[in-house]
């Protein structure tokens, strides 16, 4: 049996990462006002703006990650591996720059910004994992609470 060449093997299938990332953005849209309202109740308008900024950073991070994966998977698996590892450093640097660029602005409150970054990232991931794992375990079924006609990420 011949071993596949990782330099020339490429994946031409559907861009599942893009579907997952778009799902996360769709789920974040109703969640964002709630988080901003909570931050606004505790820290005022500035807290609400900081919270919104953190949500935008998290969603942009997911979309960029998916875009890197999709683009490089269509070229070669080896490129995808290096792009994921390089992309990790790049995205971490971009998140750092995006936060440090505004941290001294008058409308930024550090605590809601920091906590929203963490809560949104983890919350969206757990939420998406619930749907993806249910789809993988029971391919013919949809998890409870999904509205009919609403599209989900198809991992196959």
């Amino acid at each position, binding site marked *: 049996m011949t*071993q*596949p060449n*990782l330099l020339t*093997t490429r*994946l031409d*299938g*559907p861009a*599942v*990462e893009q579907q*997952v*990332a778009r799902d996360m953005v769709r789920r974040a849209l109703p969640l964002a006002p709630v988080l901003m309202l909570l931050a606004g109740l505790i820290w005022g308008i500035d807290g609400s703006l900081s919270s919104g900024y953190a949500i935008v950073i998290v969603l942009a991070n*997911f979309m960029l*990650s*998916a875009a890197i*994966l999709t683009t490089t*998977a269509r070229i070669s*698996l080896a490129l*995808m*591996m290096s792009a*994921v*590892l390089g992309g*990790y*450093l790049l*995205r*971490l640097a971009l*998140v*750092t720059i995006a*936060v440090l660029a505004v*941290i001294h602005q008058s409308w930024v409150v*550090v*605590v809601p*910004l*920091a*906590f929203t*970054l*963490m809560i949104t*990232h*983890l919350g969206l*991931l757990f939420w*998406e*994992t619930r749907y*993806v794992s249910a789809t*993988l375990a029971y391919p013919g079924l949809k998890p409870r609470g999904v509205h009919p006609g609403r599209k989900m*990420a*198809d*991992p*196959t």
Partner: protein
Amino acid sequence: MLDLFAQAASSSTAVAPTEILKGLGAVGAGIGYGAAAIGPGIGIGIVVGNAITAMARQPESAGVARTTMFLGIAFTEALALIGFVVFILLKYT
């Protein structure tokens, strides 16, 4: 030249202990953030390496492997994000 050394010596003795502690705190926060980014880097390497092996062996199940890989990368990256959050909380609050 000697004047410059003298100025430097006098200015260094004038640094308040609170400023030294503030500087050391910033150095510690930076080292902590850097250390927090190492583990996820190794973790992402393991996740992607194994996913690529799976995809190369069974291209027909590449969709499942890619979905799991994407979520695995994001979960591992959350650790680095937590390190960053600790960094900004230590440095700016």
